[in-house]
């Protein structure tokens, strides 16, 4: 019976004006999204390769001496993700540039920002279309699901038969979901066809499972609105009243709440300030300098003459390494505070299902904050690898003092690090490793779990309301 009700609902919906409008709007937006993405992606990718090649050739230019490789600050850019078409994850406003050498990695920066004067809209991606347009359509499909039938008098006829109420409710729920799946899947297909037809975007086999996951997630998200629609519809007697309540709920949860959370968080949370970072860096440097004797006699001597008896190069290198390590630790701490603030803000904004959906989708698409944080971690790891490489190459040079330290002058004029040329191919190059599907799943599990929980709660609420609904 559930099937019959669902089929009837679907057929009825298919013939309605709201379905035509939703289908037209959604599919055209998905098409535009695909087109805009393909164009933008091509440019971004060209830009990315240009900069990456520049970086590599600059690194190649340093390979005539090992110490130069160690000190050369490499500029690593964030690679555009092909799945950004699904969820761009606000990447436009996230850090995209990471500078690193064998000793230190700078804080991530934003380079070549887009026009600051334009309003900050999220990029047109699947998540935007689903979270704003299709969620709206979900409400429009269900606001009169129960009370509309009561007004028309058909509900009592249906229930006068032997059909139990839960079957009616399930039938209506499935009917609405199937109706919504049509524009969703059609739109996704159109968008994917546009993306697949372009020569610039190549989707890896693993990407398809991610796309499927995002599709499933979108259904989970839309189901919340369908269930809210049925719930409100079975709490009210008139369909216009149901619409009024649903619109309010939609506006509050989808539009107002994310912005409200942001401003409340801004007022209440004290940002870790760059001045504070500078002060701490200065403090720790001074402290280590003041106690330089701890690293060996005359560790703090800055004489430029190697044969100066006041010089103690090994101690000096130990001191310099200790300073850089301490500074790196403080920078790391500052960076984790920045991340904690951003994650705190996102956790706070989780009050809105849109935020849960966006977060989970961007995790599956491999974009967003998690990706940036992961990238920075990898960049730092790369710095350590490079240092190890320098150490192992340096040990082969009998002329070197084998003092791997961050003082450029020592390395340059005293050969503290080998001056021998290295093969460019042997130098480790940075290669970003994306999250695996399992890692993405682990990161998104809370959001997906919360969305599922919300679904269950709303279904329970709708079910109880409908059981108690006066169909007369």
């Amino acid at each position: 019976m559930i099937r019959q009700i669902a089929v009837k609902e679907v057929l009825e919906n298919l013939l309605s004006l709201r379905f035509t409008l939703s289908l037209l709007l959604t599919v055209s937006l998905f098409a535009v999204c695909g087109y805009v993405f393909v164009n933008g992606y091509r440019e971004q990718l060209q830009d990315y390769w240009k900069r990456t090649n520049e970086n590599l050739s600059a690194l190649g230019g340093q390979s005539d001496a090992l110490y130069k490789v160690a000190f050369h600050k490499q500029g690593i850019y964030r690679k555009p993700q092909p799945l950004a078409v699904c969820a761009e994850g606000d990447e436009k406003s996230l850090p995209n540039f990471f500078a690193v050498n064998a000793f230190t990695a700078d804080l991530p920066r934003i380079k070549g920002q887009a026009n600051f004067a334009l309003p900050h809209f999220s990029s047109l991606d699947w998540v935007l279309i689903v979270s704003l347009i299709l969620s709206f359509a979900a409400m429009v499909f269900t606001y009169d699901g129960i009370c509309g039938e009561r007004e028309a008098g058909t509900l009592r006829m249906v229930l006068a038969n032997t059909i139990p109420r839960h079957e009616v409710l399930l039938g209506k729920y499935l009917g609405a979901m199937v109706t919504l799946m049509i524009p969703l899947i059609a739109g996704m297909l159109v968008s994917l066809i546009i993306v697949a037809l372009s020569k610039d975007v190549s989707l890896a086999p693993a990407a398809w499972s991610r796309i499927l996951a995002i599709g499933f997630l979108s259904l989970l998200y839309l189901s919340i609105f369908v269930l809210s629609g049925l719930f409100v519809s079975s709490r009210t007697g008139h369909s216009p009243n149901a619409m009024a309540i649903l619109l309010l709920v939609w506006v509050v949860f989808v539009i107002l709440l994310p912005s409200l959370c942001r401003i409340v968080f801004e007022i209440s949370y004290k940002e870790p300030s760059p001045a504070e970072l500078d002060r701490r860096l200065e403090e720790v440097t001074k402290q280590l300098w003041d106690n330089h004797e701890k690293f060996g006699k005359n560790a703090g001597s800055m004489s430029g003459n190697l044969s100066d008896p006041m010089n103690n190069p090994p101690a000096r290198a130990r001191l310099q390494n200790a300073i850089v390590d301490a500074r790196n630790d403080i920078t790391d701490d500052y960076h984790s505070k920045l991340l904690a603030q951003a994650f705190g803000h996102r956790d706070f904004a989780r009050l809105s299902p849109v935020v849960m959906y966006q977060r989970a989708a961007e995790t599956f698409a491999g974009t967003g904050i998690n990706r940036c944080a992961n990238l920075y971690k990898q960049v730092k790891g790369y710095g350590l690898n490079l240092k190890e490489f320098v150490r192992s190459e340096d040990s082969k040079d009998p002329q070197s003092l084998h003092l791997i330290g961050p003082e450029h002058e020592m390395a340059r004029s005293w050969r503290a690090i080998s001056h021998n040329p290295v093969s460019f191919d042997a130098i480790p190059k940075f290669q970003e490793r994306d999250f695996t599907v399992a890692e993405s799943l682990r990161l998104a599990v809370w959001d997906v779990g919360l969305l599922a929980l919300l679904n269950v709660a709303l279904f329970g609420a709708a079910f109880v309301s409908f059981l108690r609904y006066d169909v007369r």
Partner: protein
Amino acid sequence: MVWKIAAKEFLLNLMTFKFAVGAVACAVLTVVFMPILAADYRQRLETYSSEMTRNETELRQTKAYRNLRPTVYRPPAMLSAFSGGIEKQLVGAARIELDTVPELSLTERQGNPYLPVFSVFDESLIFKIVISVLALLVAYDVISGEKEQGTLKLMLSGATARHQVLMGKLLAGIATLSVPVVITFVIALVILLHSPTVALGGAEWARIGLMFLASLMFTLVMYQLGFLFSCLAKRSAVSMVLGLFAWIIFAVVVPNACVHLATQIQPLESQEQKEGLIASLQNALADELKAVRVDWASVERYEKSGDDDSFGGWHEKLIDQGWLDAERKSNASEIPIKVRYADRLWDVEHRHLEACFRQRQIANRLSRISPISTYENVMAVLAGTDLTSFQHFISGVRAHRNQVLDYVRLKTDNFSSASFLAGCTEEDAAEFTRLFRREEQAQNEADKAKAKQARETWAQNKRAQAAASLSLQDFPWFRYHPSLVADLQKAMPDLLVLVVTNVVLFGMCFAAFVRYDVR
């Protein structure tokens, strides 16, 4: 008859559930929004005041005109609670230096780069989103609903003319919707006035009055849109769906699409191109400076640089005649070149800014097809948080830079007097030199020590006397005054668009209703 219909409709509307939900939502949202927005404004104002004080204190401690580097700040707009515009996207501070381009930290997004940038959050959001939906909900069944109930044909079977019904319903609609508009404004104002940092002057009240008018006009546009759909559809369910889809297109699709279109129509020059231009100008500057550089090694001077040279201390020292003359020569040749290049660099920066602003302007103009965006633009202009107010600020910064330049030029005799580059007068420098010479020419050690002692005592006294900083009595302090008349002029096109949309929609409603089949 019109009044009777209007009164009946108004009372009916007031008793509907949707109206109650909408009006309560507006009131509750304003009660939640306004204190947060007021606290946000207070926080920004405090930051602004502390920055201003710090800057002024720093300036007042300056001892040489060469070190006069004021930073100017744009105060947060008092009415930003009503419309945030782009105020938070732009930081709004500029450092004025004599020989370098004003360092505009206008465009740098400061703070945590991981924090997502959300769309603006302000009071006009309630109008843009909640009241516009409410207007559509009130209007969607005005005609089609009455037709479904059969009351429309009863009404029109009497002597009542169609235009009377139309006018009555329109009047009732605007009367109904002005209730939440008034409630929202009153609550917002009460909360704002209770905030200790907000002191509304005449100009602000005028702006708020205009905002209120614009809000009413916008609500009327949305109501008439719903009315039109109601006249076009036979069933109220259809008119509601049409209205809601029109709303989602106007509220979400159009603003987004316009931004994308604007970036396509007017692409920005690449960052590298700009940086390349700046680098080539800086290279040219370095070349020109090299050609006129004073050879310091050959300058005969007694006092050498020391510990207090950092952070501009160089220019606040007690110096001798040889040094003074050399500095003067160097300044006379270098400063005009630097000023010239600063202007050229500023032009490059400015071109980039202008291109960014142009893109935004195009987006704004395109978005006028959506009444929601038009309304948003009007509110931002009236609140003084829109793009043009920043352009105004930037041109103010440039004018101020010229004023400071002229001021210093006048005070220092075209950058040549001692007070420009040293912490002493010309006589002091001459005296200082004389004391050095005496020490140099001393015949024996005892005389030399005595002369040295005399010089050091003199210098110490001089330094103590010179502790007084520059008198900045007639310094042209930067004051940013948003002008109501100018803002009104800028708001005019968008206000006109709202008026014209209302007139056109009225015409369309009239035509649709006259042809409506009431059976």
